[in-house]
Structures are given as C-alpha cells and as structure tokens.
C-alpha cells in the first residue's frame, strides 16, 4: 500500500493517504482548512497507486538533509 509499484526512485519519498480522523487532528493542530495546505495534483505519478479523491490529504515522509526524515502534508486537488 505504501510503496508505489510503478515508481521506485530515490527522489520520490513515501506517500501515504491519511484517515479522516488523522485529517481532522492535523487540521485542528495547525488551525487550517484543507485548502490551505500545499497541494498535489490528483494525476501526480507518485500517488497513482493510492486511488485518492479530491480533498484527501497525503502524508509524505521526506528525506531531509537537516532533519533526516521530515513529514509533509499535501491536499489533493484536481487540475
């Protein structure tokens, strides 16, 4: 589920769909509405395996040169 079978590349970090409960907690924690998050296109190749709808939130575990691993969130938009 987590790994994209089509794309295994060092530059592409792990993308995960987060549940509705996690989504609510996240938005509450940062005081955001969903549309204020950074965005990701629904046709983005890195999330092709997740079957996402517009408005879903993707959790991305990036490799970071400063923090080793950092978490980032993107909301799915339709282009």
């Amino acid at each position, binding site marked *: 589920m987590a790994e994209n079978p089509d794309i295994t*590349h*060092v530059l592409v970090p792990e993308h995960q769909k987060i549940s509705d409960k996690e989504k609510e907690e996240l938005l509450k924690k940062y005081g955001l509405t969903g549309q204020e998050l950074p965005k990701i296109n629904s046709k983005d*190749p890195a999330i092709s395996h997740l079957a996402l709808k517009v408005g879903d939130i993707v959790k991305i575990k990036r490799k970071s040169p400063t923090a080793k691993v950092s978490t980032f969130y993107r909301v799915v938009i339709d282009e």
Partner: protein
Amino acid sequence: MADVKKLLKEYEHKLPPSILLDLEKSLPEKITPARLKKIFERVYQEYITSVAEPGEAVGLVCAESIGEPGTQMTLNTFHFAGVSEMNVTTGLPRLIEILDGRKEISTEMMEIYLNDPFNKGKDIKKIAESLKETKFDEFISEASIDIAQLTMEIKLDSRKLEALNFEPEKLIKILQKSVKACSFKLEGDKLIVKMSEKDENINDLYKFKEKIKLVYVHGIKGIRQVLPVKRGEEYLIVTLGSNLKDVFKLEVVDTTRTRTNNIFETNKVLGIEAARAIIIDELYKVIQAQGLNVDIRHIMLVADTMCMGGKVSGINRYGIVKDKSSVLARASFETPIRHIMDSAMMGDRDKLSSVIENVMLNQVVPVGTGLPGLVTKVK
C-alpha cells in the same frame, strides 16, 4: 541502555531524527539515569531556542541569504562557463533559470545509471552509443545524385552499422516507413534510392536528399550527446538532452537513480516531490560550484514555495506572485496598473492580512512582534 531507549522513544516526536541519532552516538558509555535525563532536557531546550519562531520573516531572510552571495556570482559566472567538457550552463544564468521555473532550459542533461551487470564498464561505450538519437545522415559515408536516371546513390557507413548492430535491410525498412514516395534498392554497400512519383525533377531530388538525412533511425529522441563517466566504482552515462520517460523504458537503466536536470520533466514523470528534490539539488549544486555557502534551509524554503501549488511555478509574476490573494501584494511586484484595474473591475477585496499591503498603508506588518493581537477586557 534501556534508559536511553526509553528516552529516545519519549523524545521521538519532540526532536528531529537527525538530532536523536547524533545524541545517541555521542552519549558516554556509563551514565546515571538522572544525568541522562538532564542531557535530553538540555538538548531539547537548545533545540527549542534554535527553531524559527512564529512570525519570523523566514522568506525575507531567505531572499537576503541567497541574494547577497548572488551578487558575487555575476562576476564569477563567465570564468566558470565552458570549462567542463560539455559546456554546461552554470552560475547566475542557471540560477535564474531554475528560480524562474522555465520550461525550456538551456542545457538539458541526464545522469543515466545502469543496472548491475552493465555498470561495470564492459560495453559501456556501446550502450551509450545505442542511447543516442541517431538520424540517417550518420549512416551515410557518401551520397551522390545520378542526374541522368534521377536516382540517388548512398554509400552506407559499414562501421556505423556494425557499431549499432544494424543490418542494411533493417535500415531500409525504417526509411520506407517514414519516407513514402520512393523505393530503395540495395547493391553491395550502396543504397539506390529512386523516387516513385512521375513528375520528378532534379530540384525535388536535391530537396529529398536533405530530407532523408533527418529521418530518425535509432536511439532515444532528444538525446544529442552521450558521455560514459566513471563515478566511484561504477560507470554511468551522462547525456546532453533529456528524455526521462523513454529512458525509463529501457531494461539496462536503473530507474531508481536515473535523473534529469529538467524540473518540469521530473514533475511529469516522477511527481511534485521529486521535482522539489531536483530544485534543491540543482540550486545547491550551482551555489556550491561557485564556492559560495548558503544554508540548505533557505534553498529548501524556496523549493517548497515553488512546489506549493502542486505544480512547479517560478518566482515571478506568472508563478508564485500570481497566486497571492492580496491585490496590493500583486500590484506591488510588477505590472501594478493591470492588477489594480482588473481587481477594480472584478470588485476584489483585500483583507490586508499579509506584509506588503500593510507596508503600503503604513500599518503594523504581521511579522515578528507585529503578528499577535492583544485582547483586553474593558472594565
């Protein structure tokens, strides 16, 4: 040791993994639990004080931190350009290219990594050569036109055919597919081309000769030059020109590491996160090559900003400035009249929630101590 594990777990969400790793490495062998706890507390305190505070103008600091060394770059650029074997765009022109988010960049390059048996260096030249886009004119060693019979005699380059493992018959098949109105005949190592149209004349034949030279025969479209390079233990192929999608289809290519310096192509094939990584890599490479030192956090911020909208947008009036919600903020950047006129017609509202519009109106800007509002109870 158990105490360390417990504390590491406790601080898992408070400290970034890199700090925890460093901390674990530098802890002394023998230590009392109380002191251990104290160390973790001190590290946490130190970390909290060094984190950017809410309301800190990180963008401004970032702009200054990249802009200031950038002024020195201008002079250096012309020294460094053209030194390397492939004449690559570096320095300020490349920096501007990346930050502008240009779709067409001046030097497209790929680094093609190969799978295990192929990256040892055996046949590396042959593999590299087979990647290169080859047109028909590279197979020609001599071409002449017979005016009397209105035919063209093409002497094929047997060495080239051999290098690419090509049979003349296969070549004819490819040519026949892309050039319709003529027939090919093979005589020894000569290829006789006869136009099948009836109203042929000598002018057409000359034009045809130029046309047939440009027929695509072999390789990957867009790859103009190949260069096998040894890096560390393994060999890889650096190319001029880029076509990530088609290169990924090849069996010999390691699709987990092969990359291009074209940000838009990366975005298309690997997604927005890979594009962000490429932006960081490319910017950092340019700055490092100039012998300058800019903290990577600034570059990461720029890359994040460019990739906010799910697509790569440049730092200019067509990119990130266009997406600003405030009319005055957009007008303050470039083409002010157009923005103000457009929003006047549309009846836009400005919430004055950001920095520049408040500067224009001589109000407190929401930065640093200007960010929080105070609420008092009126008695």
